[in-house]
């Protein structure tokens, strides 16, 4: 008999002191601290009870948030930014989703050029896209304030949309590449027209990618400075308003607005992470 019962000999899982892992972990923790401590400092100083940011810390005031709530310029800028971001999302999704389909499914001469051109604003420093669009709109003699107060200005809306459409295109395109095309063929085989197939089969497959991209575009538009800088008309956006404050020196009000933005960002990320998780299922 080859197989036989042997006395069991317990083996403890070997855990010799592992200096490499310990080193890696401490570096990792260090990098985390490097990334987060500065952000933490901003948040903590938003509750600092003095108009000079200094040592020692006197915590426990909300007065900077109250200053913020009464700052007409800041509120107008925030409203303008939201309006701009929503318009940007609408336009870039409208253009970007078909753009992704064009990249995924169509063949025509110049397609490669189209692909590169769509991606260009992602790759180039934002300032180049900014000055290019500034040149363009000024040659067209379009006023940077045109459309105000309905929109913060058509040039800046179009500028954000032009720069951020690439986000929608890349995210949706990446998803389309993973979509099983035979599902669509099955749908057409079962008498669904192209539109019905898109609506009932393709769209559900790319839904989270579109939503995720929209969320990303929204956040990026809210935070955009490089293009905005050159295209903004009469009404400042939130980042430009903050920038103006910063240029005048450190004011605790900026810490308060930064804290608010930080909290909102974390909220958006949580939603985004949920979307991505839904996706894996």
């Amino acid at each position, binding site marked *: 008999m*080859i*197989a*036989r*019962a*042997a*006395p*069991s*000999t*317990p*083996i403890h*899982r*070997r855990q010799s002191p592992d200096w490499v892992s310990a080193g890696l972990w401490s570096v990792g923790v260090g990098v985390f601290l490097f990334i987060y401590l500065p952000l933490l400092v901003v948040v903590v100083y938003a509750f600092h009870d003095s108009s000079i940011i200094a040592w020692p810390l006197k915590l426990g005031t909300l007065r900077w948030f109250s200053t913020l709530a009464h700052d007409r310029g800041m509120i107008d800028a925030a409203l303008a930014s939201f309006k701009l971001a929503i318009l940007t999302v609408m336009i870039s999704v409208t253009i970007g989703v078909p753009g992704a389909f064009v990249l995924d499914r169509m063949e025509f001469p110049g397609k490669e050029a189209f692909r590169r051109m769509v991606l260009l604003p992602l790759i180039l420093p934002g300032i180049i896209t900014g000055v290019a669009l500034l040149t363009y709109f000024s040659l067209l003699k379009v006023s940077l304030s045109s459309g105000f107060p309905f929109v913060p200005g058509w040039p800046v809306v179009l500028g954000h949309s032009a720069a951020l459409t690439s986000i929608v295109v890349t995210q949706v395109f990446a998803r389309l590449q993973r979509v099983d095309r035979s599902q669509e063929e099955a749908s057409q085989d079962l008498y669904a027209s192209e539109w019905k197939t898109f609506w009932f089969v393709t769209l559900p497959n790319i839904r989270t990618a579109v939503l995720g991209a929209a969320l990303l575009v929204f956040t990026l538009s809210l935070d955009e400075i490089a293009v905005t800088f050159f295209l903004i008309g009469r009404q400042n956006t939130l980042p430009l308003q903050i920038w103006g404050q910063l240029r005048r020196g450190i004011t605790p009000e900026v810490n308060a607005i930064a804290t608010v933005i930080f909290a909102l960002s974390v909220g958006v990320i949580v939603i985004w992470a949920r979307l991505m998780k839904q996706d894996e299922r």
Partner: protein
Amino acid sequence: MPPPILELRNLTRRFGEFTALDGVSLEIAAGEFLTLLGASGSGKTTTLRLIAGFDRPDRGSILMDGQDIAGLPPFKRNINTVFQQYALFPHMSVRDNVGYGLRMRHVPKPDIARRVSEALDMVQMAHLEARAPRQLSGGQQQRVALARALVNRPRVLLLDEPLGALDLKLRKEMQLELKHLQALVGITFIYVTHDQEEALTMSDRIVVMRQGRIEQIGTSREIYTQPRSRYVAGFIGETNLLKGRVTRHSGDQVSLDLGDSQIRARAGEVTVSPGQVVWLSVRPESLTMNPVASSAELNRLAGDVADIVYAGSTTRIHLALPGGERMVVHEEAGRVPPNVGARVTATWPVESGVLLPQDPEEAAS
């Protein structure tokens, strides 16, 4: 019997709630071709990973030449692995892949060159040594993976479903080739597969695993002709399983009551007593229909032909028995099959039926 090259003692491995391996003990002789056979989740790959050192057992020990190696990292074991998806290093040429292990062990350069060339010759890949893995076909990658492991002259070679990714024809060729190669180099092979036909073709011994335990160990012939459980009988090859109650037991002779008919069988290694419920396994190729000459040593069952499937060398005839059970009979090509719906008699020699006990869990319920 010489001392075993490798001995597994009571190996247990749990992943959370799931027990992948439940007290497996096994001795492996030097130079043998041993196959671990089982469905997915049976613990065969876990066993292999424990032997290779990619994982550690929760309990038990692994003795190689008498030394416990269960805690050693893979690079300190004189054991090599051929991975399921080959795991060739994509950024190295075929030659560099094969020489990797020797370089890591600081073998002198001229020796590396010579041994790599020999290994590549052995698997007939010398002409492609400068290629990158991605430029090779599946079969070629497989050969490189084999050479990469064998060049190190391991005490034991582990193969984790190495032919699983190949198409059927190539797989059959490689099975024979692997078998020949093993005989040539004389290295102990531990081979994991879920393909019972592959196991029967190649192995000196087969270990049938199920739910983290060893179900049966034996040569291919033993496993096929003398399965010791209903699971093994059903897993290896095709079989007809008949459930019956023991009515009489004298010497080696057992009489069974199937409900509407009586049959006889040999007890073999199974101890039975009257009243007990047992299973009888009858291979389809042992069955014959409507034999011309009658013999006293035949069992007979009547049934209706439900389906006739032509399968080249044989014709498979599905019978519906009066009790509702189904039976499959393999008729050799050349005999004229009956028509669907015809009433036939299936017969088999008494000694070709294998008596099997009920599974413990089945007996309990």
